[in-house]
């Protein structure tokens, strides 16, 4: 009924999804303290708008979006702001970033929520609403959703792809969301459809989730929508946006282009759900579904507040005693969180209790034998082993020639490598080195430009100063010359009487000249913008003018008036 395309490469790791789908979604208990990081999406870091001691309500704005590509952050529950300070982040580095620490009051009181009938709003207003509600891509990339809801001007929007594939092993939060909240997912998709006006809407779900597919189909039918729910073959990374677009539409989006340039856009199902909650219920994104699984006794999906410490949340699922770490995300692309106090953020779709029993340490790394397994597994058809040689040798220029930035770090290459080389790690290293170098280069270029500008400015100032000095010296010299000339002329006339009077008259003449100059200057400085003045003002101006002229007259009429 529906022609599917294939993407090259990919792997089929054991899915391990059954454990966490037996129980319905539950609400996670309220933690004692929440640390909500301000930077939770791609783009600018939101500015904090609360301070320590403030009381906040659930859903109250605590971080104002900074720029267009940035999304607002809200208080996940009601309580008191204890600090706006650096707190540990869910990041492989374990570094701190600015977070709002909230002590819940236990009442979980909402702000006044304002449902909106988005059909009556202009598209720009809907986008702004989504930004203000902090709606971001919940598939893991956390790109602000409103920034993706503008169709390309030159290319007609052909397909809207909704990603419910959820290809990573262990993760089931989207599966449960689609099973239990299919209607709201479908209505959220409706918002995206209305904004983008695509010709077709395709919802891709991996065929290992029949319940989710059935629920979505029922919801689509109940809403009378024309969305197609498509079962796609289970193969990691079918849930990568580019892979899913390829499978459903046959289009391949290169790294350097936006998918809208090819007339297609992709959103995660959970993003659609939160968009609907934000628009139709006025609820900003303050919680998300998190799969708690791995080395735990009670794997299950929980609706957890953003900012909940991961260790505390995972405890709900009763980790086994040999748990020695938490993986945020799936086992393919996730990472071991360096600190159990790191908070749940909008990107946290899954927490896996780690133990060496569940994830045995990799055997020792062997040299690459160029078997090419990695190249056959790469969904982006790269040559990972070539990239590996160059990244290992720190030959970053070559890694770029071999398209390292097309790598999506899906981990397929490392998964199949018989030599157990941490290939993805090499690629991440190379990418961040290239970025660092670019930053350094930009900084150096900027420094150079400013240095050259400063040098020019210094030179110009020096030149101006020299010119001024030269002018002053010249004026001095000219004056002296003029005086000498005048003296000489006076002597040449040889009239004794005027000669006796001379100093007096000369002085008077100079004074008069100075007065005249001053007058001229005054007149020149007279207000010129007198056109649109009221009659009163004009009278006043005239009076002042009159006083000035009067004041200017006497010295002329009494030449000996001033000092002497």
């Amino acid at each position, binding site marked *: 009924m529906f022609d599917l395309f294939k993407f090259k490469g990919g792997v089929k790791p054991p899915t391990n999804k059954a454990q966490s789908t037996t129980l319905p979604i539950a609400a996670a208990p309220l933690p004692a303290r929440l640390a909500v990081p301000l930077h939770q999406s791609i783009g600018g870091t939101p500015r904090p708008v609360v301070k320590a001691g403030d009381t906040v309500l659930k859903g109250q704005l605590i971080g104002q979006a900074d720029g267009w590509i940035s999304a607002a952050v809200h208080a996940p529950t009601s309580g008191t702001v204890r600090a706006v300070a650096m707190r540990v982040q869910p990041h492989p580095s374990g570094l701190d970033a600015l977070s709002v620490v909230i002590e819940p009051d236990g009442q979980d009181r909402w702000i006044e929520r304002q449902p909106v009938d988005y059909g009556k709003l202009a598209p720009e207003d809907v986008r702004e609403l989504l930004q203000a509600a902090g709606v971001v891509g919940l598939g893991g990339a956390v790109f602000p959703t409103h920034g993706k809801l503008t169709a390309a001007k030159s290319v007609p929007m052909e397909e809207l792809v909704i990603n419910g594939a959820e290809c990573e092993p262990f993760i089931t939060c989207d599966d449960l969301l689609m099973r239990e909240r299919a209607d709201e997912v479908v209505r959220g998709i409706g918002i995206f459809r209305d904004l983008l006006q695509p010709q077709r809407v395709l919802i891709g779900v991996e065929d290992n989730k029949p319940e989710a597919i059935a629920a979505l189909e029922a919801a689509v039918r109940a809403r009378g929508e024309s969305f197609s729910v498509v079962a796609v073959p289970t193969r990691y990374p079918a849930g990568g946006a580019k892979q899913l677009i390829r499978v459903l539409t046959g289009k391949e989006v290169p790294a350097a282009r936006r998918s809208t340039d090819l007339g297609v856009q992709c959103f995660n199902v959970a993003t659609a759900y939160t968009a609907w909650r934000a628009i139709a219920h006025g609820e900003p994104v303050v919680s998300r579904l998190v799969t708690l699984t791995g080395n735990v006794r009670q794997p299950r999906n929980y609706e957890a507040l953003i900012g909940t410490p991961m260790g505390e949340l995972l405890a709900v699922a009763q980790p086994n005693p040999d748990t020695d770490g938490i993986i945020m995300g799936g086992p393919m692309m996730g990472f071991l969180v360096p600190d159990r106090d790191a908070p749940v953020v909008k990107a946290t779709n899954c927490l896996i209790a780690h133990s060496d029993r569940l994830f045995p340490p990799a055997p020792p790394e*062997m*040299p690459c034998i*160029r078997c090419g397994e990695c*190249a056959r597994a790469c969904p982006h058809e790269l040559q990972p082993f070539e990239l590996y040689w160059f990244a290992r040798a720190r030959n970053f220029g070559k890694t770029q020639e071999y398209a390292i930035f097309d790598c999506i770090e899906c981990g397929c290459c490392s998964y199949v490598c018989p030599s157990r080389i941490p290939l993805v790690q090499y690629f991440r290293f190379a990418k961040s080195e290239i970025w660092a170098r670019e930053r350094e280069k930009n900084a150096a270029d900027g420094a150079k430009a400013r240095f050259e500008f400063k040098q020019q400015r210094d030179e110009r100032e020096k030149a101006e100063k020299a010119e001024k000095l030269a002018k002053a010296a010249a004026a001095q010299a000219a004056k002296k010359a003029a005086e000498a000339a005048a003296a000489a002329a006076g002597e040449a006339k040889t009239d004794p009487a005027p000669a006796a009077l001379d100093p007096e008259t000369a002085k008077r003449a100079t004074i008069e000249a100075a007065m005249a100059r001053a007058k001229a200057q005054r007149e020149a400085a007279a207000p010129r913008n007198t056109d649109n003045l009221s009659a009163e003002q004009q009278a006043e101006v005239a009076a002042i003018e009159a006083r000035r002229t009067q004041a200017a007259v006497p010295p002329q009429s009494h030449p000996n008036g001033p000092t002497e």
Partner: protein
Amino acid sequence: MFKSPPYLLQDASVSRVMTQVCLALVPGIAVYVWLLGPAILIQLAVASLAALLSEALILRLRGKPLALFLSDGSAVVTAWLIALTFPPLAPWWLVVVGTVFAIVVAKHLYGGLGQNPFNPAMIAFAVCIVSFPALMSQWPSQGLHLSLAEQANIVFGLMPRVDALAGATPLDALKTALKLGAESGIDVPALLANQDIYGNFAGRGWEWVAAAYLLGGLWLWLRGVITWQVPVAFIAALTAISTALWVYQPTSFASPFFHLFSGGAMLGAFFIATDPVSGCTTPRGKLVFGAGAGLLAYLIRVFGGYPDGVAFAVLIMNICVPVIDLFCQPPIFGMKDKP
């Protein structure tokens, strides 16, 4: 604790790859033993021992972990390929010289596993055939039936190397006959039909060994250890050129079947030219590599100075690998419409 993602890993390892290659050689070895005597088992043992000892020695000299690299199985694969390409009754020291040269010079002096630009087994063959041409072309005469003990005695130099050993491979015999008969106007089909050394479609006995290699190679392909490009291109090129010349003058050129199932063609197509370390890695590069090796093997066989050309063909193609791969880079995801 530092572990890097992905935390899930497929159950794969270098030693598993090498083990599968060895397993795929077993049918060929079995047929070899059955039709041509058990001497090859002695050679396999000698070569394996020499390979492991020299590998251990050089690993120690290089300060590398012994257990890890000795157990990867790559030395054994090299050793087996050497044993299978050498004359089965060659003196033991010849095999040892070849193996040690392959492991120490061709492999470890270039950096060890994964770094050698040339196929070590083929280097061993080339070095030995250039250095000991007489010994390397002494193949047991057809119809020579010796017990294991007798064969062992010959291999270990305890029995004089009798004339019966001074036979030739079917390829060699054909080449010599053609050279001698260039004036007298020899007819290849008649030659193949009348002489005892030739079998149903290639060399007697050898044809079935080659067929068993083909079988093992297909299994390797099914297991995903090798890809289809190199064997297919190799066989296609060899078939194409041999068919063309055979059709042009059937009296002086052997049939494509003869060429495919003689000498090292099958072993080369599935086990030697497919060596990933010294071969091409891109799909199109593999096609070029295989086709080039097949073509050169035929040219050296028919027009060159050596009876079989697979070793030299593979080595020549090894030289070309970097440039082939450079020009055969596949387009990446999303860039297919642009060259």
